[in-house]
């Protein structure tokens, strides 16, 4: 059986996968839209009061203010008509206006998207740097010291909530050592600690995945054959091993993206990072439904997009599986 050589990836497979992703994106939009619509109707309490409190601050909010808001936003129309309107607007990508700040949701999201993208990409990069590397090294000697240490550390990191991990990192790097800022976004290196918090959680999983894959590769026939052929360990690894290890790691990236997207929400709140996750939490507090819809939509679409990228990468790495065939 030949190893995976540099054959052309299955373009047809990629096209199918991308079409699937497109369909997924549309379905996500519809699902988010419907849920958010029902939220406006079914939230306990009065929407108008919530919005007024979010706008004027709780010391100033009164019934008169809430009445003004209710009139302004037309919150008492029959629900069927409103749902139709909702669909229409969503499909035209009209995300409406934030009920708290009265700015268009698109504008707010544009402002917040870039910090979140920066954070996510850096976190992904760091986790890929740390996780698979340690995993491969651990897999080379299963049962050895590095293997056991990475297992222990990975379990600890998976069991720790992200806010605790963030707290520990801040205590070590900001308070004790004073080399990184604890929060905010415009000091030198503000991005490092939030990215590291996310990356460590993800690296914990990709490390084990890489390790298991490495163990499997090492035990496989073609690897043994490569060694018998006379290649050194390093050459065998580079030429035959890594690509096969990379395949499940890249495939598992798709699953880790869920962790990333959810982690972004918590980490941005802890570190006061002005991104989409931060906006989502505040929108939920303020019951600002257009913002909830907008941010949830963006997060969902971002996830779909990253998955599509992962599929393409999968296809390049492993043409056997074809694209879009996650574990």
């Amino acid at each position, binding site marked *: 059986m030949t190893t995976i050589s540099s054959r052309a990836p299955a373009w047809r497979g990629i096209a199918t996968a991308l079409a699937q992703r497109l369909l997924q994106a549309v379905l996500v939009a519809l699902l988010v839209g419907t849920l958010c619509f029902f939220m406006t109707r079914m939230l306990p309490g009065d929407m108008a009061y919530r919005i007024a409190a979010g706008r004027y601050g709780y010391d100033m909010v009164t019934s008169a203010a809430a009445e003004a808001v209710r009139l302004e936003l037309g919150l008492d129309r029959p629900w069927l008509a409103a749902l139709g309107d909702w669909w229409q607007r969503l499909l035209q990508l009209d995300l409406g206006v934030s009920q708290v700040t009265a700015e268009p949701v698109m504008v707010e999201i544009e402002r917040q998207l870039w910090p979140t993208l920066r954070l996510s990409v850096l976190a992904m990069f760091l986790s890929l740097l740390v996780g698979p590397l340690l995993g491969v090294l651990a897999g080379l000697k299963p049962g050895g010291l590095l293997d056991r240490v990475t297992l222990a550390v990975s379990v600890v990191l998976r069991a720790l*909530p992200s806010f605790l991990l963030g707290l520990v990192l801040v205590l070590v790097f900001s308070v004790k050592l004073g080399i990184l800022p604890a929060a905010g976004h415009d000091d030198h290196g503000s991005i490092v600690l939030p990215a590291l918090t996310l990356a460590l959680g993800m690296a914990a999983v990709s490390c084990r995945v890489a390790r298991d894959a490495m163990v499997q590769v090492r035990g496989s026939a073609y690897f043994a054959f490569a060694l018998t052929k006379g290649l050194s360990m390093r050459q065998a690894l580079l030429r035959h091993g890594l690509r096969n290890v990379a395949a499940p790691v890249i495939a598992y990236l798709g699953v880790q993206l869920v962790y990333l997207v959810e982690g972004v929400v918590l980490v941005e709140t802890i570190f006061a990072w002005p991104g989409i996750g931060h906006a989502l939490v505040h929108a939920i507090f303020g019951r600002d439904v257009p913002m909830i819809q907008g941010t949830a939509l963006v*997060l969902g679409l971002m996830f779909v997009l990253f998955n599509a990228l992962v599929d393409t990468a999968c296809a390049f790495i492993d043409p056997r599986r074809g694209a879009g065939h996650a574990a």
Partner: protein
Amino acid sequence: MTTAYSPSSDLVLDEAPRRLGRAQRAGIALLVVIALFALFGPWLVGIDPARQQLERFLEAPSLAHPLGFDQLGRSMLARLAHGARLSLSLAAISVLSAAIPGTLLGLLAAWRGGWLERVLAAFADAVLALPGLLLVLLLTAFTPGGFWPLYVGISLALWVEYFRVVRAASRILLASPHVEAARLLGFGPVHIVRRHLLPELLPRLFTLMRFGFAGAVLAMSALGFVGVGLQPPTPELGVMMIELLPYYGEAPWLIGAPVLLLFLTLLGLLLLAPEREAA
């Protein structure tokens, strides 16, 4: 954990292990201890977890009260025991109520194929693209502080993984010669599922359940973080982690207790897995 013998015809699926290694035994022991603590701890400790004595707030651990008192003067050990029971049962129910429908739907999709499978797959993909946290938030926003939205929300967010894994694996298995032969012999679907599919699926499902379990408890703490967690004075591990976070400086044992409990539970689950499991 014994399994019925069933040969696999594909390199992707490994054989189930036959004997329990040392790690597995340690894992089982750990889980049994935690389960006993969760089941009988509240009764053994005997202190009301809601009873507060404000003058004893943040009291250090002593012989009579091994974990001291929390910020409202409530016995931490009692709260931990009740919290363990609540959280672990909540997580278990969520995971099971995600796994069972997910598995059934996956089997259904793989068995029937055709448009039903495609529709289910598309729906699963759409749900998976929603951040699970958001789904639960939306549902809990309808009835804040209730248990049912949490169960339903977490299950809804989790079932997709089971669906996909089961569907992918079942498709391969159903195409195998053994199943074909069984079909030709006239065995019904229930029998085929029981004898041929489940033994292969259970190890993978179990892997998912492990991480799903920890994920469910951490999801509770995330919800508490955002402000839609369970209402006071309900003791629950995730919410306790949030509540006790500000006291990490002056009473680190308070937040250490639920974190350690969760860590041990996850460790136990992790140790249960066979050594050469593929990702």
